[in-house]
């Protein structure tokens, strides 16, 4: 089979590009610590969230010096808690689940972005280095009121933080 020389060069460059892309992803995952949302958490009965110790009372909890855990419930068409209040300079691990249908959880203007699937718990860790108000929106169609589904993350200066209770 005859392959033109230019095409051979193109083929080699294409393969190099592909390998380079895969390497950047691997580098991001290992050296830069960009973890993928995975299957760490067990499944959960979305009809029984009120009996679950984490989700019966959606909240933010301190678990270490600058470490917090946020338990968030998404449902047609709200997020709880709202706002999600955390101190500046904290590292927050989110546990997000749905009471009904599939939702999305996106902290606007950041790369904190997860699908929220009923029966599953999405978990991911975010560092909040700057105080401010961040919008949260649902980015998966979830019913005819989908467009009103929003929430917020409030990052307050460390000295003003009162524990995140609403």
């Amino acid at each position: 089979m005859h392959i033109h020389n230019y095409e051979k060069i193109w083929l080699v460059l294409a393969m190099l590009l592909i390998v380079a892309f895969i390497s950047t992803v691997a580098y991001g995952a290992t050296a830069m610590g960009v973890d993928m949302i995975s299957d760490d958490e067990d499944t959960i009965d979305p009809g029984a969230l009120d009996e679950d110790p984490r989700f019966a009372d959606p909240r933010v909890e301190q678990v270490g010096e600058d470490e917090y855990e946020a338990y968030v419930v998404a449902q047609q068409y709200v997020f709880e808690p709202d706002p999600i209040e955390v101190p500046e300079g904290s590292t927050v691990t989110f546990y997000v689940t749905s009471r009904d249908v599939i939702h999305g959880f996106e902290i606007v203007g950041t790369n904190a972005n997860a699908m929220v699937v009923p029966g599953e718990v999405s978990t991911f860790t975010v560092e909040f280095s700057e105080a401010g108000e961040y919008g949260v929106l649902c980015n998966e169609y979830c019913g005819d009121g989908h467009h009103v589904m929003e929430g917020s993350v409030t990052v307050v200066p460390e000295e003003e933080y009162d524990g995140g209770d609403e």
Partner: protein
Amino acid sequence: MSESLESGAPSFLDQFPAEAKLVRATLWSSFTALILGGLFGIIQTLHRTDILRVMDSSYYYTVLTAHGVLMVVSFTIFFLVGVFTWGVVRSLDRPLVDMRYSWTWYGLMVLGTLMAVVAVLGGFVDTTEMSADVLFTFYAPLQAHPLFYGGLAIFLIGSWLAGADWFRAWYAWKREHPDERIPLQTFMALTTMLMWYIASIGITIAVVVFLLPWSLGLFDEVNALLTRTLFWFWGHPVVYFWLMPAYMLWYTVLPKLAGGRLFSDPLARVVFVLFLLLSTPVGIHHQYVDPGIAEGFKFIAMTNTMFLLLPSLLTAFTVVASMEYGARRRGGTGLFGWLRALPWARPAFTGMALAGLMFAAGGFSGMINAGMNINYLVHNTLWVPGHFHLTVGTAVGLTFMAATYWLWPQLTNKPLFSRPIGLLQVVMWFVGMALMSNAMHVSGLFGVPRRTAEPQYEGFDFTPAFGTMNEFDMQIAVGGTLLFLSLGLFIGNVVLTSLGSKQSGLGDSLPPALSGPSDSPVVLDNLKLWLGIALVLVVLAYSLPLVSIISRGGLFGPGVGTYPVIIDTFSAVVESVATTGIIETLAQFEVGVIVQ
């Protein structure tokens, strides 16, 4: 005018009148879906950008479902079966085996489409409980009317039978030509259909085993992650199902239009084999940010996806090289000067060339989507529809429209009504899509979500790194309007062509490749081998994730309820219980109240 259509040769219609009639029918179905899909497209464009809101936002999702289903299922696949029927019959130079059989699959596809579309349009009628506002992806536990799932199933069966029709024609041809290589266009159609059969496994299980019986009330719960994963098992290869007929046209028709011929037949075969092998074991890349799927499985899908770039990069080379060859034969010279020698006045050529250019841009944004960690930034933002309006919306859609300008006269024996209008149309599509898609990509980068009626929120504003939301909304609206007008010009041109009077000698032949099939290894034509390897790759990529999802959540899910999208009012729920006799679960009932 060596490139002129009026070659004096007999047309496809002259040679195969029965097949030409079938192809015309499939293309009319395709164009009907296109015009309806376009109408819904412009309504939603003006609604979401808040320029003109003619309906309550709750109907936006009915419009969006109709736009998605009509465009990416009906328009694309009806065109595919038409162009593959043409390509197989033309390249085998023999008729289909049994036209009654062929009309049967076409009839099933029409029936399936009508069922699904009726269910979707039911969403506009408040007095009926029928609706299917579940969008193109129909993620459970949002639930559509059974007619929607049933229609989808019948449409798919029609498409499978169409593939079997081409295999039958090929078997018949093989008996007549025992030692010959599979003609290139037939090879492309057959490998694409093998890919389609494998891909269909996912959606068939999702629809027939879970969603249809669930919508009929046979059981109350589904595993939302499982049906979603089965959807994407099909949902990525379907992208290549849209694309492969465009590739066939780029490989076999575009070089001819450019005044030359295909560079390499063997590499074209390699590309289609690669698509057969790699299109399916990648679907999990749509689920990078899903819970319940291990990071390792996502990494495997990412790796496969990156290798799937290879056949498209090879295609980019071949298409450009074939065009350059054509241009130089037409007297073009210089490093880039040959570009001027291309037949830019022909809408069929210009449309396909512009579509190819857009595909390069769409390929770049696709590479970003494929990058697992950067995907966090763009997942489910407006970036994503920005991407696929370049790929399916232009690489595929514009190629189909451009090819129609070349093919339609050969199917009807009627010369194209107007080339200048055709040229204006393809350029308008290109400009409109450049504006709309660019603004969608950029908006996605600062977090504007896709699939929403009103991307305007109470608690926060989007903060673009440059420009303003208004500017991007205007770009989207102007682009969308240009696209809609372009679509109108296209349909008008086709209709006026069809109303014209017949001429003879509108046929156009396709020259063989520079490097012909005899140069390619015989193993490339071993379809059983490639099917076998493709199946192994799918098993490797999907068996563990599916087993894991089922063992975690169970076949019917960890207690996920049912959420029909039809609950408009409390009374509608009661009425649907009374009229359909479906046993509604308590959970549904409660949701009906909460929503209100």
